[in-house]
């Protein structure tokens, strides 16, 4: 069982590396013989695969800080101009986005999120009777 799972882990990562799929066997064996190579390959592969799909909340926090600084500068010359109002409006918009992002991250439970999309899997089945 363990070997099967390890093979399945290695296989997809090994494939793109080896242009000739017929050499899949020996390459896998080579990884098994030199585990340090395997680890580094998997490590680099993992980094490539993971992609952030939503803006991180701290990135937005930095944007909020920056926009406040800009707004203060814009308003220092003329506090009733359109530029001043537009700058503070941007601060408001970014603050709202920051608090929404924080809320979203706060109540996202990885198991709940997974089960929402896959209710039939073993971890997510509920028995009512």
């Amino acid at each position, binding site marked *: 069982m363990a070997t099967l799972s390890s093979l399945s882990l290695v296989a997809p990562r090994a494939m793109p590396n080896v242009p000739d799929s017929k050499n899949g066997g020996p390459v896998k064996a080579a990884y098994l013989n030199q585990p340090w190579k395997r680890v580094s390959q998997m490590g680099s592969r993992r980094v490539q695969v993971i992609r952030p799909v939503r803006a991180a909340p701290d990135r937005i926090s930095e944007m909020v*800080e920056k926009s406040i600084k800009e*707004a203060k500068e814009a308003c220092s010359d003329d506090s009733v101009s359109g*530029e001043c109002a*537009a700058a*503070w409006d941007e601060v408001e918009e970014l603050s709202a986005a920051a608090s*929404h992002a924080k809320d*979203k991250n706060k109540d996202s439970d990885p198991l709940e999120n997974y089960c929402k999309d896959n209710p039939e899997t073993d971890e997510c089945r509920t028995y009512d009777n």
Partner: protein
Amino acid sequence: MAVSTLYTPQALNSTCSISTPAKSHVGFHQKQLVFYRRTSKRVGGGGGSAVITCSAGDSQTVVIGLAADSGCGKSTFMRRLTSVFGGAAEPPKGGNPDSNTLISDMTTVICLDDYHSLDRTGRKEKGVTALDPRANDFDLMYEQVKALKSGVAVDKPIYNHVTGLLDPPELIKPPKILVIEGLHPMFDDRVRDLLDFSIYLDISNEVKFAWKIQRDMAERGHSLESIKASIEARKPDFDAYIDPQKQYADAVIEVLPTQLIPDDNEGKVLRVRLIMKEGVENFSPVYLFDEGSTISWIPCGRKLTCSYPGIKFHYGPDTYFGNEVSILEMDGQFDRLDELIYVESHLSNISTKFYGEVTQQMLKHADFPGSNNGTGLFQTIVGLKIRDLYEQLTSSKAAAPLEARKA
């Protein structure tokens, strides 16, 4: 006259019109199938078989407008509203993760920020806030809301609140209930005419300041002065363009600081007024004890014990911007479940389907802000009123063609 039988597997949700001899037409729309049997017997000359054409979503989409300051889509009101209809509203799966749209089984919530004509850099260049009508494309808003209302899917632009850019459009299919939420749902009169019901959330300045402090003080870079400056800078545009929309709203939820605690500036206990316009079709205002009279009610006493500062209700007729209205007001907080159920049992015309529905809805979302005061209570009640309005509208539209068939 030929006889055609009409069978529908579910409740008749579409308008069916019957026309004499034309090409046969069977429409297949979401979960609805119409079967008809056409007899080929011709009686006399002409006037042979009757043909039934059905289209789902044909002016069946109920459009609700919600005006609220800054930000939209994920706000508490929307979640409560969609929960009344059942199901949780979520962003469209597989689409832009920064989409502002929320979709559930019955409702789709569209954020009107998506109709910005100027993105963040554009607005900065022109020196215009998002509140200004010049930053919004009302023509596109009108066309797309009209299309969705008549059952046509649209490609709606996406305004990304994080980057401040206009992203590629997403497809929006016409839902049973469309909610348009944002700064200007009632600004343009063409869009206003499309709305079946409109709500305005009026937060007073003190409460707005208190809420923004709660929201932003944890942010780096923000200070009390910056929060104050932000509100002050937006105020002129807000008063000029957003605030006047409240005269057109069918229901206004006004949030004010409490009168029960002298000199309270925490903004935790709130006084909330539900201002309901009289004479709106399919909408009957909520009342306390006796409709049209003026009532002042403190439920805490012998039958109900409340903790400080207690609860105070007020109900009465009034005028609001020249319109006849009824105002239901609640000041204070709910601390226990039995306070909530006690209050609910004394309110009339709340359009619940069973006793305790308001309490159940409030408890379902006990973690939402405002769940222990008038904001949550009135938002839930407005949600039930909208459900009632939707059911009245859809049953009246289904009844009309049946009448035509009998004639």
